[in-house]
């Protein structure tokens, strides 16, 4: 099968979720990456390592915008006669994936967590009911668009560099004007991509106590998150809110302290590979979803865990 994978770049690199999507595409067929922006050809060629046999870059769009990106991917897919289009279901993917499908008359599968099963048709396993179940979705159209859930499958790195070609396509107008862009500072991974997440809830009693959460996150190289009430009362910024009505994440490690584990919270985090729960209440529902539980006071346990991680990192260096 011929596969086109859309990958975006951020801070001078192709984004991790996009590279996972490349490895995902490679498992379906011959994969061409389509991207945009001013990333150097050397950096772009690196997509080959993840399974791309070619990289097509459009230098004319420097800022992501839905109108032109939809055109870029749809036109590339058409000109290559692609059978499958794959993109990571991050914020950009959510704004263009279904549009590309509608433009191509393709069936669209969102939240894919595994490669298609082609033993009988073309069936993709997806996340539904906020991670409480999977749907196995058959795509009946000739061309298929798959939005891949970041962190579902590890990227494979066994290829070499891929040739890079510049695309010269007319992408029409961009009808949305970006007035201002405020990107997160520093080099911590944004929540949907983070492999390690340290999260805390109302059990922390107040925003002034978040130092111990941040210390642990910093020591681990993790991204911080929080429960909904904590964001609602303004102890933490809204973009940290995880759960059914916040961001859904699936990191390798999720450490939750002072969070009861309400079903709506679990809905956003139960895709995590390993869950550690720290709570004073042995009856807290979160322990049922945990791999490792610590019945204890976050104010004592978090600093102790931070020290233990430091010790571990030093002895491993």
């Amino acid at each position, binding site marked *: 099968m011929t596969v086109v994978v859309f990958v975006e770049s*951020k801070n001078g690199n192709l*984004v991790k979720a996009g590279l996972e999507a490349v490895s995902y595409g490679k498992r379906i067929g011959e994969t061409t990456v389509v991207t945009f922006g001013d990333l150097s050809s050397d950096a772009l060629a690196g997509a080959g390592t993840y399974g791309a046999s070619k990289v097509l870059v459009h230098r004319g769009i420097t800022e992501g915008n839905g109108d032109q990106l939809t055109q870029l991917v749809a036109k590339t897919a058409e000109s290559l006669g692609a059978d499958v289009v794959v993109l990571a279901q991050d*914020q950009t993917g*959510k*704004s263009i*994936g*279904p549009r590309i499908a*509608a433009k191509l*008359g*393709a*069936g669209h599968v*969102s*939240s894919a967590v595994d490669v298609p099963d082609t033993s009988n048709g073309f*069936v993709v396993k997806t*996340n*539904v*009911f*906020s991670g409480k*179940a*999977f*749907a*196995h*979705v*058959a*795509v*009946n*159209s000739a061309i298929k668009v798959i939005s891949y859930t970041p962190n579902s499958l590890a990227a494979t790195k066994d290829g070499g560099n891929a040739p890079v070609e510049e695309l010269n396509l007319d992408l029409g107008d961009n*009808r*949305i*004007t*970006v*007035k*201002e*862009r405020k990107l*997160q500072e520093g080099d911590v991974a*944004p929540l949907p991509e983070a492999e*390690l997440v340290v999260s805390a809830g109302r059990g922390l009693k107040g925003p002034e106590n978040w130092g111990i959460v941040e210390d642990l996150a910093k020591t*681990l190289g993790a991204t911080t998150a929080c429960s909904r009430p904590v964001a609602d009362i303004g102890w933490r910024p*809204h*973009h940290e809110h995880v759960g*059914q*009505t916040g961001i859904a994440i699936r990191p390798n*490690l999720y450490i939750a302290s002072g969070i009861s584990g309400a*079903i*709506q919270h679990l809905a956003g985090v*139960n895709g995590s*590979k*390993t869950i*550690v729960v720290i709570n004073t209440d042995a009856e807290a529902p979160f322990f*049922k979803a*945990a*791999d*490792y539980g610590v*019945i204890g*006071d976050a104010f004592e*346990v978090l600093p*102790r*865990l931070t020290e*233990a991680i430091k010790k*571990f990192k030093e002895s491993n260096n």
Partner: protein
Amino acid sequence: MKLLVCISKAPDTTAKIAFTDGDTKFDENGVQFIVNPYDEWYALVRALELTETSGGTVTTITVGTAADDPTIRKALAIGATDAVRIDADPKDSFYVAKQIAEYAKANEYDIVLTGKETINYNGAQVGAMVAELLGQPFVSLATKLEVAGNVATLERDVSGGIEVVEVGTPFVLSAAKGMAEQRIPNMRGIMAARTKPLNVVQPVDCDDLTSVVAYSKPDEKAACKYIDPENMDELVNLLHTEAKVI
């Protein structure tokens, strides 16, 4: 301002998730349905706020069967002017988007508002598809919306941060947290909703581009391993050697 808000129903957030008919159908037995929170709390309430200050109408549209009527009445009780139900059992997101786009095309709205996603199928698809079918711009994951004349200013979530954007009407958006605060319908609203128009419209033909062949559930978690709160070295050791996540 003429606004169209897409309203869907979703199982209550605490509903038990189970399947019937050889795991091909969601088991609705004993499940309470609510208005999808993104549609109700954010898209609908912001649309109402805008028309309350600048005038205009808020129509809701739902692709569903008569079983959706209580959900639609709730949206009317919160304050929508009138409601449309496209009488069909929605097959997939494209089917829904096609019905909404056809209706919107014939009735010309300034803004079509959808929720960010439904909390049952988590597709985050319908809004983007409606925009493409209408040939209109799409502002995804909008957290703020202001309108002045025929120009809207929005804040939206983008990978790694936020963006402030400007777009001319007509356009389509998907609403995320931050747009508005949840409103509880009052008695007067609930009474008024009973007599507000709910127009039932026949669907247009549309192929099934996708279909669910089966549902499955994640493997049961092994029991939680408890660690002495005094002994965080052991936890770190397990995370390294057993879970292999650090």
